[in-house]
């Protein structure tokens, strides 16, 4: 069997019964990256020596019957926003282009303790601010299904790596859709867990009340297994929840019989490609055939979630990014005095979109505008969350599009930030309300992958895995990108 096409569960089984070694698996992935990354630019940093060293250690553990977990020896790629002790972590920004973290983020530390093998660090929009991965200081990532199109963003590298067989699974982050939208654009599974489900310690902050670590995988069952190993309370993150976690694997086989699935009418309206709306309805019919009850519901404040999100996210960003001053780490551009050093380091260190969002957030928090923008937004957030909690009194989860369109050509929104922001209309409300969201591939549209979104109750990822598995089984399969099939065989 082709190593690169195996799921995480299949790799785990092959390692467990001695058919394969971690070194073999890791070498296969490193060869694919060596052949393909130059065309797709999914990785900012690849770490072959470290990966092989970790793989070898894993094989030795396993030979002694001391495997650390079922993921022991399986490679992973991490978004370059996740701190990795001793491995460059740039956030795709010039200002952090030389930053080598002195510690591990908790999500990565948990994987280390499971025996995971680090392949490298994935490309992203600078500081996770974008929906296309075009704002990276290291150049854009291309969509493996069509190299002229964006992979989505901000976790575009993590999504493209999994889609193009350059990683079996990866981690990203999702502040307003940054896992679910690129997962949909690249044809892979993408989970944004409930806010607080996975620790944010050691993950570079964009908008702290919205940020959440997420998972990319090739099937729903893998995603469930990875959440099982990465979720849970962390003494190093005061916003990480104490809510009980579980073994999510069982949820994937539960089926949808008797489940109530809501179709929010505000998500099936103007602004969304009509053919995508048709696909959502078709998917709902298929879930109904499997025994689910489909109920039309309403989330009346949905249209205010997007403008409110951009006030809130930029306000939090302007505060979070104040720490980059060229003093303790990162790139310093020395001026005559301290003030000049701040100005030069920040102005040259940040890219255009990051500076625009800092300016927007600073404006929204500035004297005289705080109530009109920031405080208003927090009130809208209450209304948005109340809408959801109300519909969850009658339904178990919601089915919606992930994005208003499929992947679009590179450069098509680069001079129009507002047009790019509009693409987040289906995803941001989930972050505003702190809910879990799962993007599941659902066939092709215009020969590009389409993903549908499931939205769940707080801390009920299990329901998403149950419905997500059913949706996955009913969906038209998305073929492996042609470039990825050829990749490994190229010299």
């Amino acid at each position, binding site marked *: 069997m082709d190593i690169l096409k195996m799921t995480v569960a299949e790799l785990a089984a092959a390692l467990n019964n001695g058919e394969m070694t971690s070194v073999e698996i890791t070498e296969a992935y490193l060869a694919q990256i060596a052949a393909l990354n130059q065309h797709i630019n999914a990785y900012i940093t690849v770490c072959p020596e470290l990966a092989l060293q970790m793989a070898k250690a894993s094989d030795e553990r396993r030979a002694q019957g001391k495997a650390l977990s079922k993921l022991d020896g399986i490679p992973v790629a991490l978004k370059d926003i996740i701190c990795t002790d001793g491995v460059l972590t740039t956030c795709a920004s010039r200002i952090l282009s030389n930053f080598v973290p002195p510690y591990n983020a908790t999500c990565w530390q948990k994987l280390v303790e499971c025996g995971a093998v680090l392949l490298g660090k994935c490309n992203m929009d600078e500081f996770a601010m974008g929906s296309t991965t075009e704002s990276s200081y290291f150049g854009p990532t291309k969509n493996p299904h069509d190299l002229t199109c964006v992979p989505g963003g901000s976790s575009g590298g993590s999504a493209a790596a999994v889609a193009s067989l350059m990683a079996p699974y990866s981690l990203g982050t999702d502040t307003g859709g940054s896992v679910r939208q690129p997962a949909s654009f690249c044809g892979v599974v993408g989970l944004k867990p409930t806010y607080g489900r996975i620790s944010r310690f050691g993950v570079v902050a964009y908008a702290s009340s919205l940020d959440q670590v997420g998972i990319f995988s090739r099937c729903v069952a893998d995603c469930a297994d990875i959440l099982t190993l990465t979720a849970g309370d962390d003494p190093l993150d005061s916003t990480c929840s104490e809510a009980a976690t579980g073994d999510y694997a069982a949820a994937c086989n539960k089926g949808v019989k008797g489940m109530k699935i809501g179709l929010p009418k505000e998500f099936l309206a103007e602004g969304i490609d009509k053919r995508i709306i048709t696909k959502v309805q078709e998917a709902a019919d298929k879930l109904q055939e499997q025994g689910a009850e489909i109920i039309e519901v309403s989330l009346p404040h949905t249209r205010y979630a997007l403008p409110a999100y951009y006030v809130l996210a930029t306000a939090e960003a302007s505060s979070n990014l104040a720490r980059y001053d060229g003093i303790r780490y990162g790139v310093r551009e020395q001026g005559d005095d301290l003030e000049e050093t701040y100005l030069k380091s920040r102005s040259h260190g940040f890219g255009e979109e990051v500076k625009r969002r800092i300016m927007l957030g600073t404006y929204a928090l500035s004297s005289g505008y705080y109530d009109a923008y920031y405080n208003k937004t927090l009130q809208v957030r209450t209304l948005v969350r109340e809408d959801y909690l109300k519909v969850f009194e009658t339904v178990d989860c919601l089915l919606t599009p992930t994005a208003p369109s499929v992947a679009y050509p590179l450069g098509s929104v680069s001079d129009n930030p*507002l047009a790019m922001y509009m693409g987040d209309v289906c995803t941001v409300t989930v972050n505003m309300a702190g809910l879990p969201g799962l993007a599941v591939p659902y066939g092709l549209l215009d020969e590009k992958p389409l993903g549908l979104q499931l939205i769940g109750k707080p801390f009920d990822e299990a329901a998403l895995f149950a419905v997500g598995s059913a949706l996955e089984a009913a969906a038209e399969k998305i073929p492996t990108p042609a470039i990825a099939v050829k990749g490994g065989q190229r010299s």
Partner: protein
Amino acid sequence: MAISLDTVDYVAALAKLRVEDEEKADYADKLNQILEYMDQLSELDTEGILPMTQVLATHNVFRSDEQKPSLDREKALANAPDREGGYFRVPRIM
């Protein structure tokens, strides 16, 4: 409440960013487009609605005041653009 070129200067100064003269009009233009879109929030009546700063029902978490291992000084200084001994070195402040 449109953003003028002077507002761009004012906000950039607050954010410790330098915006070149030739960039100002573009910043003002794009920020105004975004703010105009955000202004639809004002049509929504939020009188009496409590602002939500956190979606989690968080509570204070206490731990005993015990010393635990912390970051090694050399590691903490390893990324310093400029250092002297055990300190970060910065340009003159005044």
